């Protein structure tokens, strides 16, 4: 069967990998990419299209999820309504530190608008919402693959808005699959990162020797997956039928990395590759209990030091995950995949991502550098 897939958020961290994987799946005839109109439209289209070998099957459509009716031109709208079989809604504001209303406008109201559009597509087989494992907030222990009541608290407004987006999707009366992605660190094959996020920013500070300590509790683990693994899973999910609401954790689950191992692996690699670390001059950060970390945080706040405030802001995006250890169930995700998720070797992935980031000075890759794997 031949399908048309509409993708939102293709210019995000996952976008290039996702498009490449979708074009590689039998049964997907056309990929329509909703791209926000703007002065750099041609450049962004070129950036997404150029690395792909089958780009003739890509169609770029001007549209914006924060505008009524996605600001689609009538011709585009009508054509898409008649053609779209699957919507992959990956567009989101993932800046953890963003202002609540700003996050809400994209993550909640944007999702509401995309759902409204999807309801008008008579051929729709699936609405695939790209969500985040962060919706579990501050809960700890096993996290099952289903919609749950809100956790006692969310670490940041981003998590809250993604949780609300899930609720909207679940109530839309559509065949909905929610893919909750764990932290996508980069391409496991070459370390490519399309958009550096909070974890990369923390890595960057760490490499500069500006992260003196990392908070942890007993059992702290880091659930990381390679971006290409997430993209492959989403592409397969797009062509896997869904009847009722299905929630899937695209996560390392049982294979999440013990924090100590992650720190040791990272430091060992830096000692082989990065000046300052190579000579043993920079020490590894100390893993500390929460109270000690809070004293440090208060101390930084009291000092008014701008640089450390930025370091802590970046760290604050993913350090809290260390304080609320979770074990993500991956049964549904594996059922979609047809077996255990094809996780990459995390050590190699981390090393490659560090090398990639350092080689690009942690700046966004230029169009010519977009992933060619």
């Amino acid at each position, binding site marked *: 069967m031949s399908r048309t897939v509409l993708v939102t958020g293709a210019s995000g961290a996952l976008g290039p990998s996702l498009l490449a994987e979708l074009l590689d799946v039998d049964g997907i005839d056309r990929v329509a990419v909703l791209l926000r109109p703007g002065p750099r439209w041609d450049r962004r289209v070129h950036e997404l299209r150029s690395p792909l070998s089958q780009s003739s099957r890509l169609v770029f459509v001007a549209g914006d999820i924060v505008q009524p009716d996605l600001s689609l031109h009538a011709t585009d709208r009508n054509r898409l309504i008649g053609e779209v079989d699957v919507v992959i809604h990956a567009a989101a504001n993932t800046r953890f530190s963003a202002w609540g209303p700003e996050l809400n406008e994209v993550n909640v109201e944007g999702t509401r608008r995309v759902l409204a559009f999807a309801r008008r597509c008579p051929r729709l087989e699936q609405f695939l919402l790209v969500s985040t494992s962060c919706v579990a907030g501050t809960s700890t222990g096993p996290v099952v693959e289903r919609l749950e009541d809100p956790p006692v608290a969310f670490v940041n407004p981003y998590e809250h808005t993604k949780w609300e987006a899930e609720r909207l999707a679940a109530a839309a009366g559509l065949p909905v699959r929610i893919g909750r992605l764990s932290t996508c660190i980069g391409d496991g094959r070459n370390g490519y990162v399309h958009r550096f996020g909070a974890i990369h920013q923390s890595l960057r500070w760490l490499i*500069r*020797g*500006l*992260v*003196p*300590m990392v908070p942890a509790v007993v059992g702290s683990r880091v659930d990381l997956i390679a971006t290409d693994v997430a993209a492959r899973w989403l592409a397969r999910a797009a062509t896997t039928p869904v009847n009722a609401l299905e929630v899937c954790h695209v996560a390392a689950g049982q294979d999440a990395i013990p924090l100590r191992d992650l720190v040791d692996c990272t430091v060992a690699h830096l000692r082989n590759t990065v000046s*300052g670390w190579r*000579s043993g*001059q*920079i*020490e*590894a*950060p*100390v893993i*500390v*209990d929460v*109270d*000690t970390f809070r*004293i*440090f945080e*208060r*101390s930084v706040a*009291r*000092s*008014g*030091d701008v*640089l*450390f405030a930025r*370091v802590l802001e970046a760290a604050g995006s993913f350090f809290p995950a260390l304080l609320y250890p979770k074990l993500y169930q991956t049964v549904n995700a594996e059922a979609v995949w047809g077996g255990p998720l094809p996780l990459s070797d995390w050590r190699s992935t981390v090393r490659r991502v560090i090398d990639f980031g350092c080689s690009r000075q942690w700046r966004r890759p230029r169009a010519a550098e977009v992933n060619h794997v």
Partner: protein
Amino acid sequence: MRANPDEVGLSGVAGILPRRQCDLTQLAASGLLSSSPQALAGFGFERAHLCDASGQAADLALDAARAALSDAGLQPHEVDVLVWASARPESHLCAANVAEAGAVMEGFRYSSAWLQNELDLHNAEVMAVAQQGCATMFAALRVARAILLTEPDRRHALCVGLDVLPPGAPREILFNVVSDAACAVVVSRGCATEKWLGYRQLSRGYYWDPAACGPEIVAAYFPTAKVVIDQLLEEQGLQPGDIDAVVATGVNQASWEILMRLVGIPEDRLFRALPPFGHTITSDSFLYLEELRRLGHIPRGSRLLLFTYGFGSSWCGLLLEH
């Protein structure tokens, strides 16, 4: 307590602060602070001690040396070695009395030699250590001990530390309020008090330029301090709980709170029993050690840990048996 003649200890300890004090508000009003007085008060600072511009620095060093000799029960002629210690270059030189003195010759007006002359330490060999920042006095003690252990004719070394900032210099360094001060320690062979158990230092030239890498130094402080203390304890076969007292420095109190937790020594073992005097560069540990000895609350035989960080950068831990 009977002393082993091959053991080295600290037979005399003294620290002297200038009488003149400025509180945080006064320092801020004079433009000598970069952070707000409220922020610095939150870090446990109240004031800075400042030398007058009139050459009081020399008197501080002299007073500290005399007090340490008295504490050790020594006469000047019994001192075999004098080690001068200053982190700041200007403290290695005596201020010129005549403006027309040649600039080149002024550079040879050594504080160490002046002190030898003033104290009549006519049997002492004189030297100086520098460039260890706030750890300079630790380096002086280490040099003194090495001489005593390798040259059996030498029995007592007097280490004198002095750091005085130039008049009008800023009084805040990396969120620490800086005071002027002097200290002196007599290191003696066959001494059973403050017996030298071990020493560990890590020097990281990567951080050689504090003006350029202040944030990196702040971040490196804790992990490297933990490594030094962990290694020092391990070398001595000790656990954190075996340390009976940690002799503080005058740096911001939150950093001590964090460090005690990092190394696993109970926080109530931090000895900081003096009103906040600021951070004196070379003298902090010895101001507190003098007070610890004076109070006599810590039982003999207790293990004392002294730790300091000095620009350069060096992290130093010294383990003593009280």
